[in-house]
């Protein structure tokens, strides 16, 4: 069968699904290969929505959906660059601690009467700086990304506590970003989330940078020998993650009106769960922003449902942990099928 060029161009850049394709005939396999990895997540999401809609009358309405989006925005903004990194076979676990440090630095600066714009630039600069340090350690020194960012995760959170003397530093006059709702009754942070999603989707699908990330994740040695400047690309990935941290730190600070060492705990956990749930492979080379966003929404809906059903919120962590394990197990299974 000949594939016309337009259909090839319209197909998503995710690697074709191998799950379920292995045992079918060639025709079916070609069709199955066109179904993206994240199709199953759409089904999961729909099932969850139907389930919670029947279980509680408070679930299925616009206000609650906006709540879910608000709750998902922070994780989502971090999960986008995390997807880019995981596709290239890299991790950034420092995002939670780094976000806390950004809120602390911002609060400290803002409450010492520095102009708002200076405090904002400082916050974003700290985020990007942490990203650059991670990138330097991984690409120049050559430390494994997992170890590097576990290290910086601890360091950044500790510095956040040091910066705030272990207290939360409250402030007034910076709530617009996190609280006000400019359009369709939807707050800024959700709109920012949408913009980040569009930007990262575009760069993963349509730019040489995105292609390079996929290539590096698929086979770092081959990518280098094909002429891709792998270290530069990975470094850029970490800086993008750091920029997202800077932005997230500002959003969290604005939303909560304080800078605190306790901010954004477990953010790295939620982000990685969403990314892996969304079909990005721990082995690198496959995954998509669309999948990740679906992963973020699944987690958001589950968390929201748990609250609405009056179940203790600790169960959120249980579900999130289980989701991570299930997602990784599915990834393993997929790799095994692909290997056959």
């Amino acid at each position, binding site marked *: 069968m000949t594939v016309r060029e337009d259909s*090839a161009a319209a197909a998503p850049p995710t690697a074709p699904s191998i799950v379920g394709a292995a045992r*079918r005939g060639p025709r079916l396999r070609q069709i199955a290969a066109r179904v993206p990895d994240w199709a199953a997540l759409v089904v999961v999401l729909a099932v969850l929505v139907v389930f919670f809609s029947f279980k509680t009358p408070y679930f299925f309405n616009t206000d609650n959906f906006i709540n879910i989006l608000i709750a998902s925005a922070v994780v989502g903004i971090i999960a986008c660059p995390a997807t880019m990194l995981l596709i290239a076979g890299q991790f950034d676990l420092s995002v939670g601690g780094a976000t806390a440090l950004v809120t602390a630095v911002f609060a400290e600066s803002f409450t010492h009467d520095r102009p708002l714009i200076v405090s904002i630039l400082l916050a974003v600069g700290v985020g990007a700086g942490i990203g650059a340090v991670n990138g330097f350690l991984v690409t120049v020194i050559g430390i494994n990304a997992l170890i590097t960012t576990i290290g910086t995760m601890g360091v950044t959170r500790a510095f956040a506590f040091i910066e705030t003397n272990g207290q939360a530093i409250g402030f007034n006059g910076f709530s617009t970003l996190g609280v006000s709702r400019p359009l369709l009754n939807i707050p800024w942070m959700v709109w920012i989330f949408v913009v980040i999603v569009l930007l990262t989707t575009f760069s993963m699908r349509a730019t040489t940078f995105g*292609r390079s990330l*996929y290539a590096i994740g698929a086979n770092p040695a*081959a990518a280098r*020998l094909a002429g*891709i400047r792998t270290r530069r690309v990975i470094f850029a990935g970490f800086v993008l993650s750091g920029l997202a941290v800077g932005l997230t730190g500002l959003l969290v600070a604005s939303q909560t009106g304080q800078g605190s060492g306790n901010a954004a705990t477990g953010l790295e956990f939620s982000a990685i769960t969403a990314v892996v749930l969304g079909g990005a492979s721990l082995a690198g080379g496959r995954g998509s922003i669309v999948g990740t966003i679906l992963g973020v929404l699944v987690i958001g809906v589950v968390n929201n449902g748990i609250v609405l059903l009056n179940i203790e919120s600790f169960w959120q962590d249980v579900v999130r942990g289980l989701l991570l394990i299930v997602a990784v197990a599915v990834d393993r299974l997929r790799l095994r099928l*692909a290997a056959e």
Partner: protein
Amino acid sequence: MATLLSAHGVRKSFGGVEVLHGVDLDAASGSILALLGENGAGKSTLVKILAGDYVPDAGEIEIGGERYSHLTPISARAAGVRMIHQEFQDAPTLSVAENISLGRLPSRRSLVRWRAVRERAQTVLAQMGVDLDPDAQVGSLRVGERQVVEIARALSDQARVLILDEPTAALSQQEVDRLFDFLRRLRDQGTAIIYITHRLDEVHAISDRVQVLRDGFVATEGETSGFDRAALVEAMIGRAAAGVVRPPARAWELGAEPMLELRGAAAEPAFADVTLRVFPGEVVALYGKLGAGSAEVAEAVFGLRKLTAGTMLVGGEAGAASGPAASIGRGVGFVPADRKREAILPVRPVAENVAASSWRLLARFRLLISRRAEARAYRRWHDALSIRSRNDPLQPVATLSGGNQQKVVLARWLERGSPLLVMSEPTRGVDVGARAELYRSMRELASNGVGILVSTSDYEEVVQVADRALVMARGRIVAELEGDAITTSRLLTEAGG
């Protein structure tokens, strides 16, 4: 010679496609059976069934009088069947002795008896007639030695049927000779050996019987002495082939200025005093056995190794390129020896694999790349190189056969338009049919003015593709042959037998 292992009517399908259509195989004790076939002929699948890695859909296996409908890795081992894989299955950080007893360390009350571990290793190594330190760390051994350790492990575990899957792929000639000696000795001690290969010269050198598989059927089988080379090739590819033939003499003009020039180049300790020139329009082979330095020269030309002395000019331009990206910018393309690890992006689509080195050239504003542009790049080379695929630009490259993957890697550099192509072992693990097609493409490229430097340890390859051949031994160029002076015997003699 009693038949020790026999398989009858073995069938196996993957994903609805049958790859073995009722195959018989007999292995006798005290005999070496060469199992020959192109990639995809089904030989790996067949031996994996014998080793218990796969369960056959139909058929029966009989080992030493016991009948099995299928084997498991454990029951195969208990029956005395052991397979030496191409990829080592050893523990590189442990010692030779520990590796030989891997998985069955002698112990008393869960304490390892280290003396017994050493004794067992010494016994089996002595029996095999190899001189290896049982305390050496396996990861520090040379490839050939590691293979010996794997065989030692099998033997010390009472292997009666030894299966070797293309064991010489990474060996030097001396190591091959030693391996053959040693397989003969094992045969004489009564082991049944199944030797998988697609190298014809090895079939006559080592085997007593030969069985040729083609497309999942037994194409032919019998006493090795009853077949000549041409008959085996014909059985493998299903048509008569001319064997090792020289390409027609070059009918086109060489460029005036060398594309690549090395003067007294050295990268100690791999090679020294290498002087060579590659002109646009010619295929120059750098032939040497493993460790002779030819692979390292290729790496240096691509900027993967720093020269410690001498000069290198690419396109008349001096100065060492640092790293692949810079070399590509200077017009050098590189086809690495280890396709799987260094060349392909396995889970990514074929179109991306073709476009990978040219993304910025194919992109708008050097940034915006489309699926459409990649698909066009892929189609440009799909027919020219006769890449056999589903003709779907989004098909993952890992689903192609080795030969077709190699064509995709070649297409990557054609798309890039590199005027100098450096290829290292370009047809390793590529079947005969695809090999001929690759040679044809290389000749055609040269006729279009590309300069090609092929580093290889396969002398047949040199004969079949090179206009000029430089023979390397111990890091130096020891001979230069041109045109019809390039023969297998000359190459072997010059390289030091």
